[in-house]
């Protein structure tokens, strides 16, 4: 559904939600927090990219990937390799036995740069790789799995195994990847020092900007016919297939989209945090990314951003004061989100805050009288509980008696 004009969209309800998020991220948080905390928020925001991807992939299309950390990590490593090469000039590494290669390679007795590091001297190649490498891997996995109609739980397990493989590989190949420490000691981006407070604040705003870009891409996809097909696929895959759509192609597309988002997030993570290590890629990290999305509401892209922010803020808060309580809280969060409110914060907002809002809006008929600007195209924004339960309700007749189910 097209908004009739940008101005009208901004005063519509959906537009106001986006404005509220923008206000929070651009105005309130930078004013309220010191640069150190703001940098932490920037780190949380990079996870929001993954969460948005998961909303598209898992919430809408029903493909649960437990390997999003892989794509996050690939994006992050691509960026880290570029930064590391920039930091390892022959002058800066003159004390090494082979100057001009990253320090960990020297420690591991490598005497020349491995071939796959070479292209990362170029910044434009790096930017391409940050999106391209995760998408390529996602495409290969998707092509292999979805055309064979592997889905659901099997897909989740295999993506999890891929996360395990990549982590073991990175840790094992210390000389090429930096091993368990990851790629550390990153200093400048094209000569611009990324460690200063000013740079960190700038990077935070870059994160916010990219986040909104991704949000709009996701919103664009979900509001087109494409997005509807994704949702339909989740509910009744065979009906979509028999309506003549190539289900596998749509699944591959949305999986690649999620991978690209995760890759961007990973690259920004490297910039914001200043290093990249395998601990952000593995099984545990990957499954935590799912909870960001689930807490925010698996059907709501805006919810995913709040979910990522809240879970990560809670995580650092807990780990600072009660480290032993955090796993309990995290576990309870997983169980609670799944059992009690499967639509997450967005669902709660929907059922409790929206009625209040409704009453509030009634008093201002000016805004209410714009049905065209209502976010009709986002079904979850209007009646998420109904839509979601309908899609997920267990119907034994369909499950067991559909003749096409092989």
């Amino acid at each position, binding site marked *: 559904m097209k908004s009739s004009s940008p101005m009208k969209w901004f005063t519509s309800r959906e537009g106001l939600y986006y404005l509220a998020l923008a206000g929070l991220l651009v105005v309130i948080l930078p004013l309220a927090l010191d640069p150190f905390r703001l940098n932490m928020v920037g780190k949380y925001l990079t996870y929001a990219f993954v969460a948005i991807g998961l909303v598209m992939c*898992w919430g809408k299309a*029903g493909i*649960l990937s*437990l390997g999003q950390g892989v794509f996050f990590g690939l994006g992050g490593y691509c960026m880290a390799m570029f930064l590391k090469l920039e930091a390892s000039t022959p002058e800066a590494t003159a004390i090494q036995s082979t100057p001009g290669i990253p320090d960990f390679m020297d420690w591991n007795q490598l005497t020349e740069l491995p071939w796959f590091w070479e292209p990362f001297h170029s910044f434009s190649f790096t930017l391409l790789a940050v999106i391209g490498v995760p998408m390529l891997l996602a495409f290969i996995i998707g092509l*292999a*799995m979805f055309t*064979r*109609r*592997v889905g*659901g*739980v*099997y897909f*989740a*397990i*295999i993506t*999890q*195994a*891929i996360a*395990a*493989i990549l982590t*073991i*590989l990175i*840790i*094992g190949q210390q000389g090429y990847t930096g091993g368990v420490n990851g790629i550390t000691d990153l200093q400048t981006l094209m000569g611009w020092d990324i460690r200063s407070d000013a740079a960190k604040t700038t990077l935070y705003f870059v994160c916010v900007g990219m986040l909104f870009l991704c949000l709009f891409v996701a919103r664009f996809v979900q509001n087109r016919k494409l997005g509807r097909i994704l949702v339909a696929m989740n509910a009744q895959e065979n009906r979509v297939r028999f309506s003549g759509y190539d289900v596998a192609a749509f699944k591959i597309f949305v999986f690649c989209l999620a991978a690209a988002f995760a890759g961007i997030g990973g690259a920004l993570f490297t910039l914001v945090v200043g290093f990249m290590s395998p601990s952000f890629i593995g*099984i*545990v990290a990957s*499954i935590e990314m*799912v*909870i960001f999305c*689930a807490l925010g509401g698996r059907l709501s892209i805006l919810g995913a951003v709040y979910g990522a922010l809240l879970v990560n803020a809670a995580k650092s808060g807990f780990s600072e004061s009660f480290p*032993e309580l955090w*796993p*309990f809280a*995290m*576990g*309870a*969060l*997983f*169980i*609670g*989100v*799944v*059992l009690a409110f*499967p639509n997450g914060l967005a669902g709660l907002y929907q059922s409790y805050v929206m009625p209040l809002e409704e009453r509030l809006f009634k008093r201002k008929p000016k805004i209410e009288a714009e049905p065209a600007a209502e976010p009709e195209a986002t079904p979850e924004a209007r009646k998420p509980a109904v839509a979601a339960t309908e899609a*997920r*309700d*267990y119907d*034994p*007749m369909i499950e*067991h*008696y559909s003749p096409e*189910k*092989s």
Partner: protein
Amino acid sequence: MFDGYTSSELMSIFAMQGFAGLSLFSVFVLMALGLAIIFGQMGVINMAHGEFMILGAYTTYLTSGFFQSYLPGLFGGYFFVAIVLAFLICAALGALIEWLMIRHLYHRPLDTLLATWGLSLIMQQAYRSIFGAREVGVELPEWMMGAFQVTDMVELPINGLFVMIIALSIAVGVYLLMYRSGYGKNVRAVVQNRPMAEAVGINSAGIDRATFALGCGIAGIAGAAFTMIGSTGPSSGQAYIVDTFLVVVFGGAQSLIGTIVSAFGISQAQSTMEFFLSGSMAKVLTLLVVVGILMLRPEGLMALKVRR
């Protein structure tokens, strides 16, 4: 990678690594049996399976401590008590979890995955708070120490052999239960066609609960056996969970024989390659091959042929 070895050397390397892989095989079989029952029967992914196993291991640890302090004369036999206790405790907890959590989620298999992951985090942290983060080990009874000398190069530790015997006897037990008992017939009926099974009067909810409890109980036995060959820490279970899932999926989710064959294949491949490559590369290669085969043949090695 075989350069520089003569064929007779290669043979003994394979034999040696093969025996070394058998203890990994036993752990895989024990864990995968419980998982395969739960996954095959209900389509539920129990991410907390490793933690149930560790619960069994801690039960064994406590039992051995109890026997040491109060019944030192019977110490040689504590393990058999521990196995029974581990089974009962894990099965009881499993039934409770099924009642509290899993039964609400049967139509959302992906959500069970997340919920049981949450459960596993809670259980791990509970172990850490109760038993400490340090790994604990049990004292083996005397008859379990030592080794059989098979040939000059190959010797078999008795505890490893014992664990393998447990693994195989439980596999046989599960086979008998599933294919030669009334309960097993009901389970298979529910797996193949739930509404029809309900129509002929099988209590499918009861079957689900019993099966989940059984799977968790077997995990408990696996944990008891695990203490014989390794020490137990709060997160020991998590280390195996992904491998075990691959074992189950690779074998074909509803086939017991397939599970055992794939456990054997994966453990042997990994153990043999470890000799020639580094441990991590061996694991990477094994997992890659398994994932690759699964992409080509998603139903696993031995798929149950049913019409749906």
